[in-house]
């Protein structure tokens, strides 16, 4: 197969290429991530801060996160989606850890990996505290590789 490019083939190929690009552009535009329609601008009201005891984990199933109140009073809103393949993790009270039912990955109260196959710590959601109310931004999960102190929100 010899590569020959004269004026005609060049124009022909250029037209084909442009048309293909056009179709790809339109198609990806159609398939692009849609803005999820969620509760009021994404800030979820989890309730009064004093309600949450230190060292305990509270499920917010409908909003897809667990609120973890750490021993020092800090707050973490941890996503329920396992970082391995996206199954819904559950908090095991007896073992004091999150466990994924699909492939047995487990995570501690900070979302750190305790056992594989997951490699990444659980995603977290940003938290702000307004008038003692814990507000969680459920529309913007933050990816992280490991737990850092800066991720915790304090009163």
């Amino acid at each position, binding site marked *: 197969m010899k590569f020959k490019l004269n004026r005609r083939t060049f124009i022909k190929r250029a037209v084909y290429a442009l048309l293909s690009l056009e179709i790809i552009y339109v198609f990806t535009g159609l398939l*692009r991530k*849609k803005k999820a329609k969620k509760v009021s601008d994404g800030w979820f009201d989890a309730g009064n801060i004093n309600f949450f005891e230190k060292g305990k984990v509270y499920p917010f199933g409908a909003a897809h996160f667990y609120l973890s109140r750490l021993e020092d009073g800090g707050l973490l809103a941890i996503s329920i*989606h396992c970082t391995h393949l996206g199954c819904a993790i559950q908090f095991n009270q007896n073992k004091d850890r999150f466990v994924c039912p699909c*492939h047995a990955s487990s995570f501690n109260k900070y979302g750190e990996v305790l056992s594989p196959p997951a490699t990444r710590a659980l995603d977290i959601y940003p938290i702000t505290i307004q008038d003692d109310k814990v507000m969680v931004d459920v529309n913007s999960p933050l990816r992280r590789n490991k737990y850092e102190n800066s991720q915790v929100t304090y009163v």
Partner: protein
Amino acid sequence: MNTAGHSKAITKLLLHLHPNKVDAQSIKFTRTFGLGGIAALLFVMLFISGMLLRFAYVPSVKGAYDSIIELENQVLFGQLLRNLHYWSGMALVLVSFLHVLRVFYTQSIYHERRKNWIYGLLIMFLVVFSNFTGYLLPWDQLSFWAVTIMTNMLSYIPFVGDAIADMVRGGDEVTEITLLRFYHFHTGLLPLLMVFLMSVHFWLVRKSKGVTVQNSDEKVLVPTYPNLVFKEILVALIVIIVLFILSMIINAPLQGKADPLISPNPSKAPWYFMGFQELLLHIHPGFGIFIIPLLVTVFLVYIPFVKYTDLNVGVWFNSNKGKKLTIISVVYALVLTLLVILSSEFFLDLRNWMPQVPLLISTGLLLLLLYLVPAAAFLYFLKSKYNASKIDLMMAMFTIIIVAYVVMTIVGSLFRGEGMHLFA
């Protein structure tokens, strides 16, 4: 057959898929096992049953599951219709796979058939993709979590993985957008593409003068009608009867309505993807999802473009030696794959043995080498001991890949229970 043309237009069109006369060897059942034809028949059955199912199905999160329940309980023969579609779909994946094996092992993918091998691989991909998109539609726990797992596998492709996964799902979770998207792919775009590619596929078979035969010198031509046509009708009837009986006995699975908050334990991908899921349990996702599939695809496409010196087109396993070597390869790959799975499950702990090495190297490259080095040694052994030719080695490599995938599929779907533990 010689009445006025207009009254027989459809019959004649169908007969024109075949030439007037065919080689007597080519219509022996054991030449092709009718696999390509059966696949085409299954496609037609899926098309018809799918069209009917569309009248009952509601593609929305609220309506999908209930519409299936209503179909099964209220509609006359609704359950049978759904079962028929389900079993035809499963059969199509299996039959297409066997068809790929048949054309490969009878050396029917070389010379003028090269292009058709590529089209065939494309159609095989579309078959799997169609089945997978249909898997989500019942919107039960089984389908929801299988699709969640599969689309999350995509996100392990380096750099573009997340974008692709988000594009497939239309968001970062499986939602109604995903359902609508899959519904459209499953009932619109994919069947259309497949009809087009199948037409090209058939035409290229005709252009290469039909299916390959063992001895192209002993050519005896017989009329297609009735010799071939009657056989085809017989096979078609048997396939249809078997599918109906199967559909009457075994119902298509339907679990509880999809609940995005509770994953069933264990959550598994559809059975034809279990090989991937099994692979992912052992090896770094960068390798399991991207590098290995890429290498395998490149290898499959590349096979017919190598220059071979002693190719016997149409001969099963190329020669008796090839047959023997293929059998040895099957046994070797079987043992090797099982050994690697077991040692990786119970013994190897590369992550903790070398914590300072990046995971991509320790649980990725090293594990791959653990499989590739014995496989390469085996190929060298075939070459030195049996004086294997290039085509023999190609067949051995293909065999190892296929056996490895089949073993992983079986281990993953049958021997893994709760928490995906082996023998749980």
